[in-house]
């Protein structure tokens, strides 16, 4: 009934169509609830922008010749890109695990690499879509210059890939929603709020400057902001290297977890 030829043809199709289908499903999953997954983070970022720029504009000195509101916007965009990339892969996986429908993916011939790539790209796309929407809305408030567009793109891409990958790890590890909430509240939120979104780390005492430099979010925010103003707290190439290396390490860990079947296949 199934000849070896048709089997190999099917597995060839599965190489491309399988992960593409999973990516499409993951994209549709967040797009179906775009009000919650795209509109809500845009509104949140906008509220931060209104409140912080109102309170701090003229009071906080950041870079020479850069108004505080302009300084704030790239930070808010990147913070939202990162948080949403994390939220996409982590919430999809924890929901599928709790609902039990992850079995539909586990029963397929998808490899661990295909699984990873599909969830990764869905997270990147969600992060970029949210970031782009915030950028478009922010343009109403202030005219932002862009000095190095490729740096903006590179940091958005690598940052969302890094957090998307971290989201996969969290989604695989967590068994319950409260464990996932702990990830969000005790790791993602503090790291993103203490990364220099709202301030330049040069305004901090030396000790806290050093501490900030241990935070990978700082390099993503700073590098992304460098793309807008051509200025930053550290060299964008250092930031790019740190973010790229962090992504490779997390991707390697994730692939190991997926290959071993950790928490997914007993």
């Amino acid at each position, binding site marked *: 009934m199934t000849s070896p030829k048709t089997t190999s043809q099917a597995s060839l199709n*599965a190489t491309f*169509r399988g992960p593409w289908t999973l990516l499409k499903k993951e994209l549709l999953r967040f797009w179906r609830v775009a009000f919650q997954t795209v509109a809500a983070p845009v509104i949140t970022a906008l509220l931060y922008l209104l409140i912080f720029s109102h309170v701090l504009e003229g009071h906080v000195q950041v870079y020479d010749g850069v108004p505080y509101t302009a300084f704030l916007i790239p930070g808010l965009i990147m913070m939202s890109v990162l948080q949403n990339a994390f939220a996409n892969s982590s919430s999809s996986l924890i929901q599928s695990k709790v609902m039990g429908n992850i079995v539909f993916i586990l029963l397929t011939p998808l490899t661990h690499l295909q699984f990873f790539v599909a969830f990764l790209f869905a997270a990147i796309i969600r992060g970029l879509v949210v970031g782009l929407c915030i950028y478009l809305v922010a343009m109403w408030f202030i005219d932002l210059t862009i000095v190095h567009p490729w740096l903006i793109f590179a940091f958005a891409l690598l940052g969302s890939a890094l957090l998307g990958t971290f989201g996969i790890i969290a989604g695989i590890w967590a068994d319950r929603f409260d464990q996932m909430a702990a990830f969000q509240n005790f790791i993602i939120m503090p790291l993103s709020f203490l990364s220099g979104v709202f301030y330049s780390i040069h305004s901090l005492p030396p000790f806290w400057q050093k501490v900030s430099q241990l935070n990978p979010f700082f390099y993503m925010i700073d590098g992304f902001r460098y793309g807008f103003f051509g200025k930053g707290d550290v060299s964008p190439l250092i930031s790019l290297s740190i973010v790229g290396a962090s992504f490779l390490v997390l991707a390697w860990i994730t692939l190991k977890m997926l290959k071993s079947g950790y928490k997914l296949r007993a």
Partner: protein
Amino acid sequence: MSQPAIKVNGVHKSFGSLHALNGIDLTIEQGEFFALLGPNGAGKSTLISILAGLIKPSAGNISVMGFDVVNQYQQARQLLGVVPQELVFDPFFNVREMLRFQAGYFGRGRENDAWVDEILEGLGLADKAHTNMRKLSGGMKRRALIAQALAHKPPVIVLDEPTAGVDVELRQMLWEFIKKLNRDGHTIILTTHYLEEAEALCSRVGMMKQGEIVALDSTVSLLNKFAGKNLRLTLGDVALPVTIQSLVRNQEQGVFTFALSDMAQIEFVLSVLRTANIKVIDMQLSEADLEDVFLSLVGKSS
């Protein structure tokens, strides 16, 4: 010679100190309609989970049409469609979307749509194709779950208790559809608690108990080997003579069920009762079924 649909070689599985499977050997040929029976905790679902790649064996191996489910999992899973026991669904999508996704994971595209339509039709889901999974009734969700396992047209289909909690109408519709698939050449492996289903549908039966296969034979020969006739006698509140006590399988409120191998034993029971002056108030004679085999093999001490 063609490869067997499923070949299980010395499979063991332990969860900590619990030995869920203790050396299972089993071969299911292509085109068979096979039933795997056993009480809860016998290891049926564990065996199916290993077959499906959801859990890993502690020892031994399983192949699907010659492909090892661990080392050649891509080929093995292409050939396998598994209906999970749990009623799970993805609340974001409608029935047709889910079937398209499921086929897509296996590399099937739009060319597969005709098959998807056939499944929807065969399972009575055609008018629910655009209904969100969340809005389906329990029975409809069960159909969708079966449809998803079939979406990539697998030659080997495993149904893990597909009719648990399902009404009679759906059960009949489902079995008609599965029988058609079997006629078309698909191998069907079924676990069920409804023994009459296994008896009516399956040509061969494996019975499991405490992680082992305790019987493996054709349905007909199992019935011949283990069971004969059931004699149900209503005798009232009496003490049975010792000579026939060992033949009693069940006793309830003055109704005694004797498991007997042939007509001579029936005559023997009746003559002992007559000698003991015990009056037969009512009498029923029936052929033993798979349930009797099941009970005699796994029921009593499990």
